[in-house]
């Protein structure tokens, strides 16, 4: 077949327009990979938050008498630990609690008369068991307040979910734009090589021969451009990642990419190459089909 041999590689010119398209592909894949990384990371963050929250409770004992309070805490923990639906139950360290509350109540509030509540973190194996646990705790200490974390962090979760949605929208937008650019590149590449295609056609090449030649060129362009763009994007992401680690930004810190995410990003130039190839093939076959 004509497309399989070395001398045929030269058949379609490596013109300047082709090179421009290659760079545009690089730019578009750079943007797409970044958008996808943002989408994947925020989605992962939302999921992590969900799995964190769903199975966690906090039991709060508000009790002026420190001794009564500590006894209630010990009783509750003892009752919870043996149960199969409880993965872990432990009192929140008093110092840490003070630290947590500090911005809300101020240093003054802590060593003053304010009764410092005790808190028990409960980690469940199944979120559904929450109600049963609540009943159990109330049986031991009626004054206890039970908070599912999901309820606590609902506004934060809502905000992060909104972000994830926006990131997802961005991915869709940039990927659509890239798809369009790839399709346009395939069409405009056909235009660049119109004369050569015409000659091949008149010399008795079959439509499939011409299409194959052409789709290979587009595939190479997209793959080269896309690979460059993706590599730059990955390098950029790694740099950004290191900056975030360095800053230790807490909320953004939870936003990380798992190996599966990296694999998806690496697949993107291949996916777009496949799409460009199919688009080129259909464009050529369509254009040739219209002539004799």
């Amino acid at each position: 077949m004509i497309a399989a041999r070395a001398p045929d590689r030269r058949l379609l010119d490596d013109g300047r327009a082709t090179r421009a398209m290659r760079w545009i592909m690089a730019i578009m894949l750079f943007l797409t990979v970044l958008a996808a990384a943002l989408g994947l990371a925020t989605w992962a963050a939302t999921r992590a938050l969900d799995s964190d929250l769903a199975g966690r409770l906090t039991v709060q004992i508000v009790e002026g008498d420190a001794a009564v309070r500590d006894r209630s805490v010990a009783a509750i923990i003892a009752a919870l630990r043996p149960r199969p639906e409880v993965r872990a139950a432990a009192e929140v360290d008093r110092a840490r609690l003070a630290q947590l509350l500090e911005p809300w109540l101020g240093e003054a509030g802590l060593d003053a008369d304010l009764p410092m509540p005790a808190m028990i973190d409960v980690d469940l194996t199944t979120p559904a068991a929450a109600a049963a646990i609540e009943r159990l705790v109330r049986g031991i200490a009626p004054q206890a307040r039970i908070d599912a974390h999901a309820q606590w962090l609902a506004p934060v979760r809502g905000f992060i979910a909104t972000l994830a949605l926006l990131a997802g929208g961005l991915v869709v937008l940039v990927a659509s734009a890239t798809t369009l650019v790839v399709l346009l590149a395939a069409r405009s590449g056909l235009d660049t090589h119109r004369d050569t295609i015409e000659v091949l056609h008149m010399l008795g090449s079959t439509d499939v021969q011409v299409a194959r030649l052409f789709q290979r060129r587009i595939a190479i362009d997209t793959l080269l451009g896309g690979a460059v763009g993706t590599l730059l994007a990955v390098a950029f992401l790694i740099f950004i990642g290191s900056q975030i680690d360095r800053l230790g930004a807490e909320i953004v810190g939870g936003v990380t990419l798992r190996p599966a995410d990296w694999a998806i990003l690496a697949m993107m130039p291949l996916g777009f190459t496949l799409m460009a190839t199919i688009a080129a093939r259909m464009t050529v076959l369509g254009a040739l089909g219209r002539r004799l």
Partner: protein
Amino acid sequence: MANIVQFENVGLRYGTGPETLSDLSFTLRAGAFYFMTGTSGAGKTSLLKLLYLAQRPSRGVIRLFGEDAVTLPRSRLPGFRRRIGVVFQDFRLVPHLSAFDNIALPLRVAGMPEDEIDEPVREMLAWVGLKDRTNARPPTLSGGEQQRIAIARAVITRPEILVADEPTGNVDPDMAERLLHLFDSLNRLGTTVVVATHDLHLLSRIPDAQMMRIEGGRLLDPTGSLRNPHGAEAAA
């Protein structure tokens, strides 16, 4: 001798304009040599386009190699085209391929193995006097050199029909004669040759050649020998 091309009442109209070609009825004998003349714009190239399947007629019947070429399915056209060699009036070389690769193109399209390509292409380059321009790309060739590459590309496959549209317009008379000799050799090996030309001096070089004259889109056939070649032959 068999009829390799047969036109019956063929007409050609570009778009919605007037008919460029009208009432063409003629027969080409396999293995014969034809010259086609006519004023500029008479319709020579248009007729040749019908012959090498670059254009469908707007009416009439064309039979090529004994088959109806008008209703031929698209999938069979490449096979037909490979049996026809064409020298385009505007050469149509691939500008970024070397002279060698341009000439080798039809062989590669036909799927000839790479190691069988080198020899015939080099031989052809020598024939048209361009051995020392093997690796030159068309834009760096002179007009006549480009024309010779175009001729070499058309004849390299030893086609059953050779269609040459003004093949000597850019070369000197000596080279023109040399190229005509190439066509003649091919013709002797069995190829039917159709050469459209303005150079009336070429005509005398092939005494056996038959004349086709186009005027205003119509074929002049005063002796009727184009319409009925075998009758004419018998009469001669």
